[in-house]
């Protein structure tokens, strides 16, 4: 994908022209197109940042050698360029192309990074930088580019960003995962995914935060075994689900005009988390045409602290509901999002009591009507030490879709 990375400064936005591997140079450098000399202060910091002992090289598989970071204009001082530059490295490692013209995605990010790649709390002159960048962002959006704005955790609310996708991020791993999701979402239909140099957006934050060495074959083998076990259990669950009588209550058909909810529905975490979800091409046939289920996992690993406190999460395992059984990955799960396509017919979801003990919407009603284009976020509320569910079962039931667990109990 063609990504434009904006490095905002108080003197105006700068664009990354490119990052070129310079394997024979003894040090990395930052340079502009109109000067043969590197930018003094920035170069020193960039060399330390992306150098052999730098935090960026530890986080990304950058290989050996130095880099030439090319900007369209100079940066005099400061370190807020570190987050966008780190993300540009990550984008290249993931197979994307850094461009300044006709981008498919425009990434705007600011923040200095500490040695653990956490964003240092600071004001960053955000209002000033955003004001300088607004025209460029508007222009890109008018041209059809997707805009992704990543602000530091401490950023205040900025009114005109309301209709622009923006997130608050506390560390590079979170920002990288959001970039990966945006990169996937903006990829034109039919375009194959790039051969990833970096790990998947879900695995990456865990690896970075854990400070692991480059991945060995062992975790991959464990993942394959875990997936096989999950598949077997899910198939058993499907068998049990099909053989047992329905456990979800029968629901009388409700006319669309009688539904209680209309329009987008957001649970804990806010609809902002659901909005950047990857659009899935609707399929005409299936159990529930146009219905998509998304799993939200905590960006920082296996707790939901980041999701609950900041509303940031990794969008994972997004699937069209075209079967009566949806295997569920319990590890790190924080919430589910049910989303109905714009061109789908309204439908009613009826959750059984067992389901509602584990996943809670903004209210506890068992029946929720979804309108086209709407999303329902259901937060994971408790585990109770029980065996986690391995699959969600759905079945049509008198005009509604009955939703319960399959494969958890028994």
């Amino acid at each position, binding site marked *: 994908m063609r990504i434009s990375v904006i490095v905002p400064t108080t003197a105006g936005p700068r664009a990354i022209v490119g990052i070129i591997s310079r394997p024979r140079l003894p040090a990395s450098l930052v340079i502009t197109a109109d000067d*043969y000399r590197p930018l003094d202060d920035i170069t020193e910091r960039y060399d330390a940042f992306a150098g052999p002992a730098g935090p960026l090289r530890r986080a990304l598989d950058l290989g050996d050698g130095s880099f030439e970071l090319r900007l369209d204009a100079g940066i005099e001082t400061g370190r807020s360029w570190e987050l966008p530059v780190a993300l540009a490295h990550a984008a290249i490692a993931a197979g994307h192309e850094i461009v300044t013209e006709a981008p498919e995605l425009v990434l705007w990010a600011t923040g200095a990074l500490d040695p653990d790649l956490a964003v240092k709390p600071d004001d960053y002159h955000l209002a000033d930088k955003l004001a300088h960048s607004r025209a460029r962002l508007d222009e890109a959006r008018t041209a059809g580019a997707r805009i992704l704005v990543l602000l530091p955790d401490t950023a205040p609310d900025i009114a005109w960003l309301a209709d622009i996708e923006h997130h608050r991020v506390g560390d590079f791993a979170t920002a990288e995962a959001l970039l990966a999701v945006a990169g996937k979402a903006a990829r034109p239909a039919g375009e194959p995914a790039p051969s990833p140099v970096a790990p998947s957006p879900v695995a990456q934050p865990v690896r970075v935060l854990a400070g692991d060495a480059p991945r060995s074959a062992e975790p991959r083998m464990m993942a394959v075994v875990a997936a096989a076990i999950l598949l077997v259990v899910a198939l058993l669950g499907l068998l049990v689900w099909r053989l047992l009588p329905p456990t979800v209550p029968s629901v009388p058909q409700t006319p669309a005009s009688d539904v209680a909810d209309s329009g987008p529905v957001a649970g804990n975490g806010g609809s902002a988390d659901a909005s950047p979800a990857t659009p899935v091409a609707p399929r005409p046939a299936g159990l529930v045409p146009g219905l998509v289920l998304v799993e939200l996992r905590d960006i920082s690993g296996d707790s939901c602290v980041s999701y609950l406190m900041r509303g940031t999460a990794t969008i994972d395992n997004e699937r069209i509901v075209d079967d009566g059984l949806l295997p569920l990955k319990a590890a790190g799960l924080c919430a589910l999002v049910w989303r109905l396509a714009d061109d789908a017919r309204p439908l009613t979801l009826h959750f059984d009591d067992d389901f509602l003990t584990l996943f809670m919407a903004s209210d506890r009603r068992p029946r929720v009507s979804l309108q086209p284009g709407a999303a329902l976020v259901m937060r994971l509320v408790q585990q109770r030490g029980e065996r986690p569910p391995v699959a969600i079962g759905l079945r049509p039931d008198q005009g509604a879709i009955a939703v319960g667990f399959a494969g958890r109990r028994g």
Partner: protein
Amino acid sequence: MPDQTERDMEELFAAIRDAKAIERRTAEAPAVSAARLLKYGTRPNAVVDLDVERLLRASTPARLMYGTALGRAARAVSPMAAAAAGERATRRMIGEDLLEVIEEDGAAFLVLRLAADEPVPGHLEVRSPAGEGARISLGKPVRGIIQLRLDHGDAELSRIADLVTQPDSAIYLLP
């Protein structure tokens, strides 16, 4: 026995006399005073005086005087590099500092590895035996290394890269 300073001064005065003679005799050479020539060699920047540059290409005595002035002002000098005939000098010592020209995709990088942190040179001047040359500002060193990107797409920078790798070019590290 005259000491080194006296010898240098004698050379300098001789060069000035030659330059004044040039001023009188060389009709096609620009009218450049000896003082202007010396001032040009010891200037604290890389501003170009086209009259002086023309004189340096036209007059051997002027080049001698200019070279003497440069040598006195320089932190380190490399009069020429050891290289076989026809070969490019991509590495040479300038005093205790190592200068390399590293070819990368689309550009030549001039890499200067400093032996000591201080004093840091501010400029590099290269001058061929024919008087052709250029002075460029050096950036701030990072880990004792100064790197300059001499883009092949830029005629002037490409010319400098070419001059620096000529074995018979003199290279001066200046304040």
